[in-house]
C-alpha cells in the first residue's frame, strides 16, 4: 500500500513538470516549472487559494467556538442531553450529498425556507439567490460545512473536558473564580491538546474540501467559489490539463503533509510532557 501511494506521488511529481492531455503518453511535453508559474500568477488559482484560506479560517474558528460551547452545555448531563448529542452528530454520519441537497433546498431563491422566512418577516430587501450571488456563495458553503462537521468537534471537546479533574474546578472555586474566569484561566488552557487536534484536522480537511463545493456551487457563480480541489478536478476531467492538475496536486500534498507532520510533532511532545 505504501508502494502504491509512493508510485502515485512520484508520478504526480514528474507529471507536474509536463504539459499533457492525460490520454496518449506520447504527447507529453516537458515544460519545466511553467505549470507552477501559471499556478501562482493566474487570477483563477489565486482566487481558489484565497477561498480556501477564508474557508479554513472561518470553519476552524467557528467550529472550535461552537463545538466547545455545545460540549460545555452538554457537560452537566441535563434532561435530553443524550438526544441532543445524537442530533448534533447525525450530520457527520450523513453523506455530503444529503447535506448539500438539504441546504440547496433552504437556500433556494423562490421557495427556500430562508427566503420565504425573510419575506414573511417583511425583510424582502435581504432576499437573494444565496448560492447564485458571488458575495454570499462562499459564506453559504462555510455555513453548510460547519453544520455538517460541528458534531465531530463537539465529540472531541466532550472527550477533552473529561480529562480535566473535578479537583481543578473545586480549587478554582475556592480561589473565588467565577464562570468566565474558570473558563478562561482553567478550562481553555487545559484543552490545548484538543485545540491543536481540532485546528490541524480542520486545516487538513479544508485543503481537501471538494464535494461540498462541487455539489453546492460547482465552483460558480462565475468561478467565485473555486477551491484548489475543484480546479484540479476540472483541469484533469474537463480541460485535459493533466500536467497543470498535477502541479495543483503537488502543492496540495505539500500543504497537507506539512500540517500533518506538525500534528505528529505536537502529539510526540504531548507524550513526552
Amino acid at each position, binding site marked *: 500500500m505504501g508502494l502504491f501511494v509512493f508510485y502515485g506521488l512520484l508520478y504526480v511529481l514528474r507529471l507536474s513538470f509536463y504539459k499533457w492531455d492525460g490520454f496518449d503518453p506520447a504527447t507529453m511535453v516537458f515544460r519545466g516549472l511553467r505549470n507552477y508559474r501559471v499556478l501562482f500568477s493566474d487570477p483563477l488559482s489565486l482566487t481558489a487559494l484565497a477561498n480556501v484560506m477564508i474557508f479554513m479560517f472561518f470553519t476552524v474558528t467557528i467550529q472550535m467556538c461552537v463545538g466547545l460551547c455545545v460540549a460545555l452545555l452538554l457537560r452537566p448531563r441535563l434532561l435530553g442531553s443524550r438526544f441532543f448529542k445524537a442530533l448534533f452528530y447525525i450530520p457527520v*454520519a450523513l*453523506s*455530503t450529498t*444529503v447535506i448539500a441537497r438539504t441546504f440547496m433546498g433552504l437556500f433556494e431563491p423562490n421557495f427556500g425556507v430562508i427566503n420565504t422566512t425573510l419575506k414573511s418577516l417583511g425583510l424582502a430587501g435581504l432576499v437573494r439567490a444565496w448560492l447564485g450571488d458571488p458575495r454570499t456563495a462562499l459564506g453559504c458553503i462555510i455555513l453548510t460545512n460547519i453544520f455538517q462537521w460541528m458534531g465531530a468537534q463537539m465529540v472531541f471537546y466532550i472527550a477533552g473536558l473529561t480529562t480535566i479533574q473535578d479537583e481543578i474546578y473545586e480549587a478554582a472555586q475556592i480561589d473565588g473564580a467565577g464562570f468566565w474566569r474558570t473558563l478562561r484561566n482553567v478550562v481553555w488552557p487545559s484543552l490545548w491538546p484538543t485545540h491543536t487536534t481540532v485546528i490541524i484536522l480542520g486545516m487538513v480537511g479544508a485543503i481537501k474540501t471538494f464535494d461540498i463545493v462541487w455539489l453546492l456551487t460547482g465552483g460558480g457563480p462565475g468561478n467565485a467559489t473555486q477551491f484548489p480541489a475543484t480546479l484540479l478536478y476540472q483541469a484533469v476531467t474537463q480541460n485535459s490539463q493533466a500536467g497543470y492538475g498535477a502541479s495543483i496536486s503537488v502543492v496540495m500534498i505539500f500543504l497537507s503533509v506539512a500540517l500533518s507532520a506538525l500534528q505528529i510533532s505536537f502529539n510526540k511532545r504531548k507524550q513526552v510532557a
Partner: protein
Amino acid sequence: MFRKLSLGQKIGIELLLCLFGIMYIIPLANVGISSFAGAGIGNYAYLFTSGFPIARMIFNSFVVSILQVALIVAVASPAAFAFSKIRFPGRGLIFMVIMLTMSISMLCFITPLFRTMKALGWMNSYQALVLPAATYWMPVAILILKNYFDSLGRELLEATTIEGGGFFTAWLKVYAPISKPAIVNVIVLGFITSWNDYLNPLLFSRTEDMRTLPMAVVSLTSSIYGARPEVVFACLVIMAVPSVLVYLFLQDQLGEGMTSGSVKG
C-alpha cells in the same frame, strides 16, 4: 457550569440547547417532511416504479460498502498487529508515512489512478469502486486497531510463543478475537464513510447501472424522473436511513474511534 447548578441556570442551559437543536432539526425535518409532500408515500413508490434504476443503485451501495469494509478489516487487522507487536527495521518510519497519507486528498492522485484503472480495464467496475476508496481509508483503520493492540500488551504474545505458536497464530487465535470492540469501531465508521462516499464513484463509475446512492441523487436531479423535488427528497431519505441507523444503534460502542475516525473537518 463547573459546580452545582441552580434551577435558573439549568433552565438556561436547556433553552440554549433547544435553540441549537432547532437549528439542526429544521433542515433535517425539512427533508423528511418534503419527501412526503403531494403524493405522500407515493413519492417513494414512484422512485421504485418509474424506471429510474434506484434498486440497482441501492444494491451497488451495499455491495461496495460491504466489500470495502471486509477488505479493510482483513488487511488492517494483521497490518496493525505487525505495527504494534513485531519489531522490524523501519517500523516507525513506515507507520508514519502511512499515517501521513491519511491527510492527502484522493483527488491529488486522479491522473495516476485513472491511468492504472484504464490499464487494468477496471474503469466502471466494482474493483474500481471498492479498491481505491478502501486503500485511502485503510490508515484510519490501522490507527484504530494499532491503538487497541498497543493497549493489550505483549504478555499474550509471549505466552503463545512459549506454546510454540508464531506471530500469525498469535494474531489469528489470540489478538484478533479479543480486538472485537476495535473491529466494531472500524466496521461502523468504515461502513458510514463508504456508504456516504461521493468522490470515488464520481471518478470511476461511468454508467447509470454502476452508480452508488450518493451519485444517484445527482443523476436523479438531472433526469426526467427527478423533475419533482419531493422525489429527490425521498431519495435523500432512503440514502440517509442506513447510515443514521447504524450510527444510532451502535453509538454506545463507539468509543474514541468516533473521534479518530473523523479525519475530515
